């Protein structure tokens, strides 16, 4: 049986409906192209409000919009399997995000005389990206206040919600320390009855994500079609073109065709699909002339710490509002921005957190340690009351050895191999020192025992560049070899930046869509 959507030769097929695919598909549909979205997860119910979870059964995970299988991580040679914070449903991982859409700093993209870039700079620099950042900011209805340290225009920002008493007190304390806090840039409309869906699906079209700002407006144009529960298994094609997309829907395999194929399965899923598309024409996998498909995998490093507001600060709930970029670059080292996580930790929460940290640490096997975390946490809670949790988001650098692993025997499994380089260890220690120095005089506690990779921020596995030998994609994010294959997710990023990736993914997706609509073929 053939699928109804396989009868059409589409203008574009978009594989994956996260922030990249959703945004690109919307722009294409709004430009009048006929777009087919293929989404591995289900359509779900709009009223759902669940967050990420460790529920084990694959079908239960898919129903919740979660990636069905665990991620297999070989970290410094040690194997672990766990459920990464990855979505599989309309909106992808973005329906679970905290909607922090931060604009990169110039040094994140450009090679500057006093701030050399680790890759020599992105092939499309800050000035060329600026207009796309602005457009994405409008599309995602970004709110916040300008970063006082940035010499660049802040772009179109809607007024942020007024800071809470805790935010105001913390920001005043930070300024006393010579820091430059601002109100973080968030894509939450804060309509009446806003549920503040940080980490959970938003039932109200209030949080702007790949679904509410991407797929739904795309479908509203009448030019787009969404097929869910369609697991794309491989790309088909000849030397320089993709001629078909093969997907399993239920028990059947279907083939869809289009003039353009936009790959947006995420920085783990997209390279895995290309590696799964080995054929006579593509013996190393699709678009893999460089041999770099899946390589240069990066995550951010989370440096999480609790910060207690000064005594007498009224307790007005968790803060998700504060961000600062004082520590992005220090003495030539690339660190990253610091932001509130939107978590207010009480005694029990810190116990839980420390327990999790301990479970992942080298002393995980030592019995009887876990209850001990209650003692410092109890002391802290007694002394200080509620803490606000902050995270320093440290930039990861690309290494070809850190990569997505593909196993033809288990083609749908997501697996990565990642080594923590001595350079990263050293930089993390320096970052911790910088945090401790920046927040000196404030009551604080680091909540991490070792380097903690942010598995929700993978990037870099299909890097873009000018040289086909050194990159998978050209500067338009089109495959160097397959001239109708484009990539619109975080895979394209040659460096991971010191800020959250979402705004950059959305902005680049708009840029890619624009290039597609202007392509004469």
């Amino acid at each position, binding site marked *: 049986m053939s699928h109804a959507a396989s009868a059409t030769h589409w203008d574009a097929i978009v594989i994956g409906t996260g922030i990249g695919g959703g945004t690109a598909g919307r722009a294409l549909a709004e430009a009048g192209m006929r777009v087919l979205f293929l989404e591995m997860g289900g359509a779900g*119910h709009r*009223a*759902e*409000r*669940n*967050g990420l*979870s460790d529920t084990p059964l694959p079908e*239960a995970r898919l*129903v*919740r919009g979660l990636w069905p299988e665990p991620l297999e991580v070989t970290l410094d040679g040690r194997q672990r399997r766990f459920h990464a914070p990855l979505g599989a449903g309309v909106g992808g991982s973005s329906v679970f995000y905290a909607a922090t859409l931060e604009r990169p700093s110039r040094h994140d993209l450009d090679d500057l005389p006093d701030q050399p870039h680790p890759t020599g700079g992105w092939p499309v620099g800050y000035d060329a990206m600026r207009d796309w950042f602005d457009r994405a900011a409008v599309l995602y209805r970004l709110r916040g206040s300008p970063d006082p340290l940035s010499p660049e225009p802040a772009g179109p920002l809607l007024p942020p919600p007024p800071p809470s008493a805790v935010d105001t007190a913390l920001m005043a304390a930070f300024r006393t320390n010579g820091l430059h806090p601002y109100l973080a840039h968030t894509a939450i409309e804060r309509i009446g009855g806003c549920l503040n869906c940080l980490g959970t699906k938003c*039932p109200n079209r209030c949080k702007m994500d790949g679904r509410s700002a991407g797929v739904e407006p795309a479908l509203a144009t009448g030019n787009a079609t969404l097929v869910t529960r369609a697991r794309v298994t491989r790309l088909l094609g000849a030397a320089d073109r993709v001629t078909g997309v093969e997907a399993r829907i239920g028990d059947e395999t279907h083939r869809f065709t289009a003039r353009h194929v936009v790959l947006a399965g995420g920085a783990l899923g997209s390279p895995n699909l290309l590696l799964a598309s080995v054929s006579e024409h593509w013996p190393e996998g699709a678009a893999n002339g460089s041999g770099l498909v899946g390589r240069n995998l990066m995550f951010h490093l989370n440096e999480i710490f609790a910060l207690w507001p000064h005594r007498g600060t009224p307790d007005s709930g968790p803060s998700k509002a504060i961000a600062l970029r004082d520590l992005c670059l220090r003495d030539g080292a690339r660190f990253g921005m610091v932001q509130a996580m939107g978590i207010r930790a009480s*005694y*029990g929460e810190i*116990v839980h957190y420390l327990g999790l940290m301990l479970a992942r640490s080298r002393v995980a096997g030592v019995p009887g340690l876990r209850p001990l975390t*209650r003692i410092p946490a109890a002391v802290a809670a007694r002394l200080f009351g509620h803490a606000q949790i902050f995270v320093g988001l440290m930039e990861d650098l690309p290494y070809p050895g850190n990569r997505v692993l593909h196993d033809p025997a288990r083609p749908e499994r997501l697996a990565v191999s990642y080594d923590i380089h001595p350079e990263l260890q050293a930089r993390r220690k320096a970052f911790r020192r910088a945090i401790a120095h920046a927040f000196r005089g404030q009551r604080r506690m680091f909540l991490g025992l070792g380097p903690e990779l942010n598995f929700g921020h993978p990037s870099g596995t299909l890097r873009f560049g000018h040289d086909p030998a050194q990159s998978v994609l050209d500067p338009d994010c089109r495959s160097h070899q397959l001239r109708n294959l484009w990539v619109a997710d975080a895979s394209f990023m040659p460096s991971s930046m010191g800020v959250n990736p979402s705004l950059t993914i959305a902005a680049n997706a708009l840029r890619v869509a624009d290039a597609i609509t202007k392509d004469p073929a």
Partner: protein
Amino acid sequence: MTRLAPQDGIAIVTGAGSGLGRALALDLARRGFTVVGIGRRRDALEETQARAPDRVFPLVLDVSDAAAVRDAFATLRQRHGRIALLINNAAIYPHRDILDETGESFMESVAINLGGVVNCSRAALGDMCETGHGRILNVSTFADLSPLPTASAYSVSKGAARIFTRALIADLGDRFPGIVIGDWMPGMLRTDMGIPDGLAPEQAARWGVELALRLDPALTGAVFECDTEVLPPRGLKGRIRDMLLLRRRRPRRLS
């Protein structure tokens, strides 16, 4: 929305032709709700309706018939509006020794006491999942804990219905926290199914309706007996942890 109001939608009470079901339907009607009373006996339902003619609408339906329930719920949605509250109350309690049961007679009880809850809940969830709000209250019993002689089919089917409550919550609790689901044990009542010197069903119904109208997500999974919450048993570890964390759980009350 922490409390259901008549403008949120209609209430459905199964087994509304007698005893507790009738008392629940009439109490809800008194508070201004449009109530669809479901039962198998038309004359009994009409007697319930006669006491609140503007608000109670009888619906003759066998809750063990999945297709009939599906169709009937679709129709009443068109006629009366969306479903905000479902009280699964209908049950049968045949006092029958196991040597007098057949496989068929046993499964007949299961079809009503468990199947009825499954069928009606499933049909009502269509509306509730659309809006993300709703209330399902299952009238329950501790009969499963130590079955009495001649109560095998009742104990098994009502016990399974309690498991179904927990399974519903496992499937829906995290995705739809605004759909509040729980069990309520009304106590020993002076009804056909109960005991002669039991509690007046009208008294129990006041508690049941109070519990049914509370739309607090924190009530999902809670079990109430009469007007008081039954706390889940805590093991030694749990009690020590409560002590360490300075947590002492107190049962919630309805009155």
